[in-house]
């Protein structure tokens, strides 16, 4: 297969030990579940191992050698992540346990905040119908707890955000607009500028869920012009147990803390406490130290290859996959049908064969896809389907794997035919 813009996957795949797995009676693993979580390169695993074997200590509060080394590694990872997303300041990068915590952190801060940020019964929250549950439920909870009204943008038939009524949805009452940059179920890449401009006009804050963007394309928080950006380590070659919230410095200074505890304080007495400056203010307790170090190694790895090259690789692959899938009888793409403004996650239905059955029969051929509502059940409701099958690609995915998927789907059709 000779497609333009592809990476040297033969070399890259050598970095990922799990890709050598052989399943069921000799089937080679075809891992197409990258939107759920990515695999980890040797470089990240080595960084974890080295951290634990040589430098492990608790951070910040120690003056012995290991504590200083661990602190330098942990804070060094913050520098790397800050550079990776072009943050104006390293102090704007907060380490969390995953994107879900990052999103909940913002929702909770706004519930406890003073004016002008405070979300209460006189205000409104705006999200979209294509959010991951992790960007829906925190706002439903906030709405229940504060009385604020929750509003959302719907989805068009071709899987794009319906922004036609933007001026009615985002209003002077809106305090926060939170939306996904790239949908994990539809693959849609959303038009940031339009939404941010309207939010700025009414003075609302903007939170962007970049969980499916950060792994796949160059992310520039300054260019996005958002107030907060959330993403998660495990989807971008990093370990589980680490997420990021980037936030504008003035906001992090003005907003109240979320979790209380060690590390996030300045001084504590039984009667009252004062808080450390951001990012520490938002990092209560022993942080995910090794995981941050692994995340640093992951962004080094991705940057070494180049985010633009990774994006180009996936774009080519997605185009090819859409082309192959469209040829399968009965297959219906749920989401944009062209590779334009979309990511490398492709959801589809196959006749009336239930996605569970599709996934099971694909698995038997070594092909790992995800089936279900992908933590975005409102999208399934919107399209009147119970679930989808989703194939999602990453920098190590190959055209041969796309072919295996297409062949596998033919086999599924025959099996249940």
């Amino acid at each position: 297969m000779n497609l333009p813009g592809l990476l040297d996957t033969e070399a890259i795949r050598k970095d990922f030990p799990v890709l050598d797995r052989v399943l069921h009676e000799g089937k080679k693993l075809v891992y197409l579940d990258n939107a759920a979580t990515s695999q980890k390169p040797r470089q990240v695993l080595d960084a974890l191992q080295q951290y634990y074997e040589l430098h492990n200590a608790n951070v910040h509060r120690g003056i012995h050698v290991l504590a200083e080394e661990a602190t330098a590694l942990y804070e060094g990872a913050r520098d790397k992540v800050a550079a990776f997303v072009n943050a104006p300041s390293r102090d704007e990068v907060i380490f969390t346990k995953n994107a879900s915590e990052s999103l909940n952190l913002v929702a909770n801060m706004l519930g406890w905040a003073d004016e002008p940020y405070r979300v209460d019964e006189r205000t409104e929250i705006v999200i979209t119908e294509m959010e991951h549950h992790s960007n829906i439920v925190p706002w439903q909870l906030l709405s229940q707890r504060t009385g604020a009204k929750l509003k959302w943008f719907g989805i068009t038939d071709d899987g794009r955000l319906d922004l036609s009524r933007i001026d009615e949805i985002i209003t002077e009452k809106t305090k926060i607009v939170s939306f996904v940059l790239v949908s994990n179920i539809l693959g849609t890449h959303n038009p940031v500028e339009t939404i941010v401009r309207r939010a700025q006009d009414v003075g609302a804050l903007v939170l962007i869920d970049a969980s499916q963007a950060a792994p796949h394309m160059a992310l520039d928080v300054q260019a996005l012009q958002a107030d907060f950006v959330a993403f998660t380590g495990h989807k971008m070659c990093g370990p589980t147990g680490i997420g990021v919230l980037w936030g504008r410095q003035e906001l992090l200074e003005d907003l109240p803390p979320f979790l209380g505890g060690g590390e996030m304080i300045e001084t504590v007495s039984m009667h009252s406490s004062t808080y450390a400056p951001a990012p520490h203010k938002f990092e209560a307790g022993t942080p995910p130290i090794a995981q941050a170090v692994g995340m640093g190694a992951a962004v080094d790895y991705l940057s070494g290859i180049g985010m633009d090259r990774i994006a180009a690789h996936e774009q080519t692959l997605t185009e090819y996959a859409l082309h192959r899938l469209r040829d399968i009888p009965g297959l219906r793409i749920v989401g944009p049908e062209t590779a334009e403004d979309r990511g490398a996650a492709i959801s589809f239905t196959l006749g009336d064969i239930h996605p569970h059955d599709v996934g099971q029969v694909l698995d038997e051929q070594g092909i790992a896809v995800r089936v279900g509502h992908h933590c975005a059940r409102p999208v399934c409701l919107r399209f009147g389907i119970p679930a989808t099958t989703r194939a999602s690609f990453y920098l190590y995915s190959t055209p041969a794997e796309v072919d295996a998927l297409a062949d596998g789907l033919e086999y599924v059709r025959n099996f249940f035919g």
Partner: protein
Amino acid sequence: MTMKLDSMYQDVILDHYKNPHGRGLRDGDAEVHHVNPTCGDEITLRVSLDGGTVRDVSYEGQGCSISQASASVLNELLVGKELPQARRIQETFLELMQSKGRIEPDDAMEELLQDAVAFAGVSKYPARVKCALLSWMAWKDATAQALGTGGKEPHPA
């Protein structure tokens, strides 16, 4: 087809999937709505009792071949049975499904479970066990409600 797939998708199961028994909602004494949060499979199920006998089990839902076939088998097996016998069947099916493939159904079990023994192969797939059990758990729940002995409330959508 591999041996393993074969053991899950027995012909009996595929037949029930394609030609489900007793599908559709009819009158009943209690209705429940159960969801498999792992995969979004859903079932609405009604039980109608006639004294100590299962008069009807009607259902509607969406789900994979396993959950659909299992509801069909349930209808076939339980309708017309006395409650104690229906419960025995339900409990035996539960035991089989939780066996992780370690129970080889014997004659007595086959006699009791009939078509439902075909699900033995599914018990090796932890993620699918829940699909197979969805309607059975719903039945248990609805029956308890119909008898006024409590059980789970219908879930808000």
